[in-house]
């Protein structure tokens, strides 16, 4: 009923190739974006912005980045928080040492630095794959943890290793209030999502997916593994680096090397596993699941008016959260994005399934 695309004929290549070929999808997407830009800033409280929406937007961007290399190219990485750290510290040093730079330029440069580092740590993927590669990427994590904790130049010789940043300014617009941060992040995220969507359905993305599905066959049809794998690592690290810079500058404002530790890497990985590997939409679902759900669970007993000690609440939070992860992985191993796709398929036939 909602998804009857009868009568929507494609009469040009442009119509055939657009991102959202079905009218209902386009309308829905534009409505959603308009809602996110106009309605959300008006109705949502500061708490929801600062604790839920802002971390969600930034980690969704990071999850998209990780999904490019893990979900699309099939190269497992469990050290991606390291590239977030590279992005964040690169941006910090750029702002500190070249204060004239516009923040958008800083973001892109930070992404490029992270991409370069990602390229280096992607080199092992040329020789090893699967779990062995996963272990090799751990090296990135530990190396970066060590680097930013021990080499003082990166933290501008801060005596406790914690760095702080001034509020972001863009063309005289100081991004300070939660609403402004949200709108800025949303805009960045939309731009990067559109780029990612187009990347993965173009020849580059196809090369990645061919590599993921069977590397020997991909080589036979003329895809160069060096190029495909390293480009996936570089683009992925770029995304994650930008997300790291935003995490530091817009979300945290001051951070220590431990902000980008192994836990964050694993969380990113869980996001794309639960959300759906090889799906941009899944990155959003996964980020929402990991960021928002624990906080909601933590507040649930209070909403329901059940008196409970804070220790009990946080134990329960861990248990329920863990159980839900297991539940979703059993019900739909392909992630929440797959559930969404199934739902859409059903709605297309509803109310008269075959």
């Amino acid at each position, binding site marked *: 009923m909602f998804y009857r695309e009868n009568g929507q004929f494609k009469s040009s290549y442009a119509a055939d190739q657009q991102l959202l070929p079905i009218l209902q999808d386009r309308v829905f997407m534009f409505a959603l974006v308009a809602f996110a830009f106009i309605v959300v800033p008006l*109705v*949502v*409280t*500061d*708490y*929801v912005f*600062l*604790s*839920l929406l802002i*971390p969600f937007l930034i980690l969704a961007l990071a999850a998209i980045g990780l999904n490019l290399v893990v979900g699309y190219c099939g190269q497992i990485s469990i050290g991606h928080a390291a590239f977030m750290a590279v992005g964040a510290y690169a941006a910090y040093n750029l702002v*500190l040492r070249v204060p004239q730079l516009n923040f958008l330029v800083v973001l892109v440069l930070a992404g490029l630095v992270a991409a370069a580092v990602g390229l280096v740590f992607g080199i092992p993927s040329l020789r090893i794959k699967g779990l062995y590669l996963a272990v090799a990427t751990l090296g990135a994590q530990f190396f970066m943890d060590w680097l930013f*904790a021990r080499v003082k130049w990166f933290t501008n010789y801060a*005596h*406790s*290793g*914690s760095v*702080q*940043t*001034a*509020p972001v300014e863009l063309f005289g617009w100081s991004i*300070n209030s939660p609403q402004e941060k949200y709108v800025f992040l949303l805009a960045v995220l939309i731009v990067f999502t559109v780029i990612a969507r187009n990347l993965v359905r173009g020849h580059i993305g196809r090369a990645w997916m061919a590599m993921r599905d069977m590397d020997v066959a991909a080589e036979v049809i003329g895809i160069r593994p060096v190029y495909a794998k390293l480009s996936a690592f570089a683009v992925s690290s770029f995304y994650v680096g930008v997300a790291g810079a935003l995490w530091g500058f817009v979300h*945290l*404002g*001051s*951070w*220590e090397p*431990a*902000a980008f530790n192994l836990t964050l890497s694993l969380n990113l990985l869980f996001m794309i596993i639960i959300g759906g590997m090889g799906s941009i939409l899944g990155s959003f679902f996964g980020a929402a699941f990991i960021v*928002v*759900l624990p*906080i*909601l669970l*933590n*507040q649930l007993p209070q*909403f329901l008016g059940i008196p409970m*000690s*804070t*220790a009990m*609440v*946080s*134990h329960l939070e861990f248990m329920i959260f863990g159980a839900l992860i297991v539940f979703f992985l059993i*019900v739909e191993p392909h992630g929440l994005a797959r*559930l969404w796709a*199934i*739902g859409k398929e*059903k709605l297309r036939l509803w109310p008269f399934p075959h």
Partner: protein
Amino acid sequence: MHKAKFVGLAVGLATAVAFGTGSALAQDKKGAPAKKAAAAGGGEQFFPVLSYRTGAYAPNGIPFANGFVDYLKLVNARDGGINGVRITFEECETGYATDRGVECYERLKGKGPTGATLFHPLSTGITFAVTDKSFVDKIPIVTFGYGRADSVDGTVFGWNFPLGGTYWDAADMLVQHVGKINGGVDKLKGKKIALVYHDSPYGKEPIALLEERARMHGYQLLLLPVTHPGVEQKATWLQIRQQRPDYVFLWGWGVMNSTSIKEAVATGYPRNQMYGVWWSGAEPDVTPAGDGAKGYNALTFLAPAGQGQVHKDIIKYVHDKGDATGKKEGFGEVLYNRGMVGAMMSVESVRRAQVRHGRKPLTGEQVRWGLENLAIDQAAIKRLGFEGFMSPISTSCVDHRGDSVAGIHTWDGKQWVVQKDVKLVADQAIIRPMIRASAEKYAAEKKIVKRDCAKESQQ
């Protein structure tokens, strides 16, 4: 069947989301308009309590939180609140994690009729993170004995209050103390001091001062970081066995402290040459090491172990009424008492602020005046029943720390014994220039306009 599953899921998610945002919405809405109408007076002062009763730091977090909350309950039960303004409070579990701490801060800052009174982040990492927010939210961040050392400077850090001492003070006191044992700090030349520290902003804070002192006195400083949570220290203590430092300063927290002491026993490093900071000298730190902990020393400030008049009141008004917090864990222990003193100083700063702003629920901004004009003298300490548990303290707009005095206590196998006639005062001639330089750097990086204290006091 698939459809049913999907619909159920969708409904579940939708309710969860609607529920979550809706309630958060409601809670903030309740806080926001009331904030403006503060003058009307609702008769309740809200204290947020950031605590950790789970995770690797729970053994230390639980007694502290119990002491803090018990004292707040006592003020309500015994005095009917602060000059008639009743205290309300809410705990939020941070697990010592910075991100959850910030979430708790955001969750609690708008509650109560006038918003949060002040925050005790109870973690240096969380302190660093919420310091930025305090400038916008105008809520004081009280970090007694922890937090940023440079936040003593009230002209830059307008909302931070490291009451009673910072890690630079602590490190300075320890160097003075071991200097005194050797017959003067100049005798430390050629000695080796190892700093075994928690590899986080907390543990790294004292390094700057220890390096400064090392330049002055010519001792050799070994820096030995221990990663969170600190249960793996074999490599660290291997280095100590090789290097044989004359003293080990321990800057640990939670399970890391007891692990260090156990490793010292295993390495054969004499415990009486080990000195912990005031966060490394409580009962949960030494009891797991059993007899091996005997002779271990630590700084103590504000509150040593023991019971005084205030404890009797807590038993009478809180525990006997069946209102004890968390099964009375740690009652009368070091951290319980310290939590109690923390609550007391918070309550007293509200009382002080009421002198200027009236006996009604106050906002964080109004309470700041109380914190900046805190004057708890010996008579006040006695009146409050805290005799022997803290030394007098007075603050100002420029100096957000007040006086910093500490002693040394030693674990005798059963209890902490305060060493007589050891009274350590940090040498501000060394620390003050460091604070100024560091605060200036912070102000420049964050583009902060400094406060003019002379002008404010005239208003």
